[in-house]
């Protein structure tokens, strides 16, 4: 059957993402669905459970290099982190710290903590943060891939920003509080969550790339995510060393502190990504630029 379209990363399930990212046939899952380690807390609230509790963890190869891969399923309870889900991620990270693969691929697709087991989820995310530090201390980079339907929010938005690199699609979103939460608490004047263009100008891939949080902006295409991940592993080492991996991390963090302080000192009237782009001399044409055009455009404006 003819099909001109690319394989969408956004529309793929977590399992399809793992298959699509790794070398064919190389993946081995840990605690797969047949083990039926489902959430007892969802069951206690009579909510549907999933055989893998919404996360796939295991090892495989990317471009013939060993990787540990963690993929959240954004369609199951918004990819939210519960006790089992969180423990699987933590276990996979601890295992990476022990087994020393070439890299960890963390496919984040999550709104944060799963409310049905909120306390377990919150502690789990803190444990994931500490396990992630352990991986990085072992000299292994963690690469976040953000391009699912739920983006990376809440605690998982923090976790994504702990990673050595973030590969994001234009459709990907990265933030802390979801727009709906802000609108509910602070009112529609503060953040109109139904204005999707605005939501993306605040949290979407392009603005996250512009602010330097995401390392690469890619098309919503599996092959693009795969090759960007491979490039992060083999290519340009300096930005892997930018955070945490360098032994000289006090200096690194002091530099990061200055960068973040400079951003926070942006003109207080700035509340829209378009204003950031305007400052860079970019108009509304940004919206329709392809990721490739946009990356070039940003490179050209680098000081």
């Amino acid at each position, binding site marked *: 059957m003819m099909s001109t379209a690319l394989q969408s990363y956004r529309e793929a*399930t977590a399992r399809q993402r793992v298959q699509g990212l790794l070398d064919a046939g190389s993946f081995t899952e840990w605690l797969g669905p047949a083990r039926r380690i489902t959430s007892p807390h969802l*069951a206690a609230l009579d909510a549907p459970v999933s055989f*893998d509790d919404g996360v796939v963890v295991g090892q495989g190869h990317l471009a013939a290099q060993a990787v540990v891969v963690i993929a959240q399923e954004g369609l199951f309870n918004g990819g939210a982190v519960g006790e089992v889900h969180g423990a699987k991620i933590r276990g996979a990270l601890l295992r990476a710290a022990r087994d020393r693969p070439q890299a960890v691929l963390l496919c984040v697709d999550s709104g944060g903590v799963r409310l049905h087991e909120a306390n377990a989820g919150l502690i789990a995310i803190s444990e994931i943060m500490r396990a992630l530090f352990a991986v990085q201390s072992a000299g292994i980079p963690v690469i976040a891939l953000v391009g699912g339907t739920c983006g990376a929010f809440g605690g998982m938005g923090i976790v994504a920003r702990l990673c050595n690199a973030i590969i994001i699609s234009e459709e990907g979103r990265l933030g802390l509080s979801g727009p709906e939460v802000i609108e509910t608490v602070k009112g529609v004047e503060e953040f109109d969550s139904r204005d999707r263009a605005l939501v993306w100008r605040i949290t979407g891939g392009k603005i996250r790339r512009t602010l330097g949080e995401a390392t690469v902006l890619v098309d919503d295409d599996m092959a693009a995510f795969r090759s960007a991940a491979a490039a992060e592993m083999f290519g340009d080492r300096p930005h892997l060393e930018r955070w945490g991996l360098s032994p000289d991390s006090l200096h690194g963090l002091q530099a990061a502190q200055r960068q973040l302080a400079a951003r926070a000192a942006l003109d207080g009237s700035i509340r829209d990504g378009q204003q950031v782009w305007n400052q860079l001399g970019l108009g509304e044409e940004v919206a329709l630029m392809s990721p490739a055009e946009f990356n070039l455009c940003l490179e050209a404006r680098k000081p």
Partner: protein
Amino acid sequence: METLHLDLPSLQDDTLLPRVLLHGVVSSGNLEVLVEPGRDAARCIFEVQTAAHGFAEVWQAVLTDFAARHPVGGLSFSIHDAGATPAVVSLRLDQAFQSLRGS
């Protein structure tokens, strides 16, 4: 949640890949199905956990047709359902079966 258990006659296809397979996702209007080896080569076992109550007869009809449509003897299908329509149930089961064929 409502739980259903069905044990239905079906033909067996020896050429199917003997592996565990998870297909689909538990999200509103959708389901996941876990395919594993069963016990009896002439029967197919279905375990269904569904969020939609009162549809046992519909499940029975959908799964009976599925077991008649494909040679799934010797297999077990475990389903977590979040309110999928019969059309979606049939589609996911057919897709899972096709994956077992390795195509």
